[in-house]
């Protein structure tokens, strides 16, 4: 298909295209593509990629996929297995981060720690990552707080994070935060039920103000952090809107 002068380079172009696609799949990076290549060259490369067993139209496997384990096991080396799990987990965390910032921040820190600890020790890294991926797939576990891990626990997560940040000993205990979270989420639910709530600046300001007063009344957060924490809680409510009203 290409002009005869280009034939010697066809093989290299194919290999480059293949590496490009595999890297894009591994890193979940759609920016990695050969847009610069002409239509004919791209068609040539696509044919080659399909022939090598990768369908360019099928997105890389998700960590939540039931076949994820099999896809990882299909990789030849321990290093490739570890890399596949690492990037799948990273992508998953960054996609879901807004839904539960406190939990996913912790997961992200754990992942970095695992990668740091088992540096260069591929076999052990694979084992540690298998365990980690298993946990990620389970999602936030329901703990002894008795809160719903999908709707209430993310809000508690933000408050607990603040508790950890406080420089002085906090006047409120972790146990006392649990009933506060329940009340807070219940109020947020009622407020955001209003039609077009997220396009109504005034209603959002009223809700933020209510949360500031609520946190202040119960001494849940130090005074200078109340406004910032309220903003974060409202932002989380926006991310969880459908879940809260389900």
């Amino acid at each position, binding site marked *: 298909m290409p002009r005869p002068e280009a034939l010697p380079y066809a093989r290299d172009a194919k290999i480059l295209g293949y590496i490009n696609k595999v890297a894009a799949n591994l890193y979940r990076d759609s920016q990695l593509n050969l847009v610069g290549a002409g239509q004919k060259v791209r068609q040539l490369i696509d044919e080659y990629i399909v022939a090598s067993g990768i369908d360019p139209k099928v997105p890389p496997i998700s960590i939540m996929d039931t076949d994820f384990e099999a896809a990882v096991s299909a990789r030849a080396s321990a290093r490739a297995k570890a890399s596949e799990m690492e990037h799948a987990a990273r992508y998953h965390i960054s996609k879901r981060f807004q839904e539960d910032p406190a939990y996913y921040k912790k997961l992200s820190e754990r992942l970095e720690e695992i990668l740091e600890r088992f540096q260069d020790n591929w076999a052990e890294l694979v084992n540690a990552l298998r365990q980690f991926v298993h946990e990620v797939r389970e999602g936030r576990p329901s703990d002894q707080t008795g809160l719903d891990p999908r709707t209430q626990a993310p809000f508690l997560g933000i408050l607990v994070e603040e508790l950890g940040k406080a420089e002085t000993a906090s006047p409120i205990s972790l146990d006392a935060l649990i009933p506060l979270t329940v009340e807070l989420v219940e109020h947020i639910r009622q407020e955001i039920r209003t039609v077009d709530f997220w396009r109504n*600046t005034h209603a959002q300001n009223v809700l933020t103000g209510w949360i500031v007063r609520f946190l202040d009344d119960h001494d849940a957060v130090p005074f200078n952090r109340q*406004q*910032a924490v309220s*903003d974060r809680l*409202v*932002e989380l409510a926006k991310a969880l809107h459908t879940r809260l009203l389900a």
Partner: protein
Amino acid sequence: MSVLEATDSITIGDLNFVLRWSDRRKTVGITVDRDGKLVLTAPSDCPLELVERIAEEKRFWVYTKLAEKELLFRPELSLSKEFVTGESFYYLGRNYRLLIVSPSNQPDLRLQQGRFMLRSDIHHCAQHHFTQWYTQHAEPWLQRRVGLFADRLEVTPMRIQVRELGFRWGSCSSGGTLNFHWRTILLPPRIIEYIVAHELVHIHEPWHSPAFWRRLERAMPDFAQRRQWLAENGCRF
């Protein structure tokens, strides 16, 4: 700076482009200037027919940009002020009339009883006095707003500076110093708040990334409306 060889102009349809040839360029580029002037820059070895064809292809884009410009850039609204009694001047989004008063031991320029009062003996450098007056009044006002937003946006207050900033309302240096144009104090307070919040968020996020807008929206849910207002009406001030 690119090396310019020659400058002439070409007309495509009803669009008139200033054509610039440059030895250093590798591609043809079209720029719509701040005042709506069209500039076509091309590599010196590019044949004229090709330049014309590219400009022809990009006509739709040029029209969209021009329409946008027409909405946003209206120089007739920012006519230069004359310093005579009755001329109006903005302060915090409101208009105040100017009154030329006879020399006395009062300050050179003051805002009193809803009037800017300018002494007639310093009339020749009135613009300078106005700039100075705006700068003086902007500083404490902006300082207070920065203080109000600092906790909320999780930044520690830093130095602010009010000065001439050319075509920008504000800027944030990597050292954390906030600069504001003295003209910001002419705008309505809720728009100044937007500029303040915008610059404060830059301390966390140096670029206008999605994370930047998310953080701004967190503290100011209606930032998009304020930004739009500023883009459409900012040239009036």
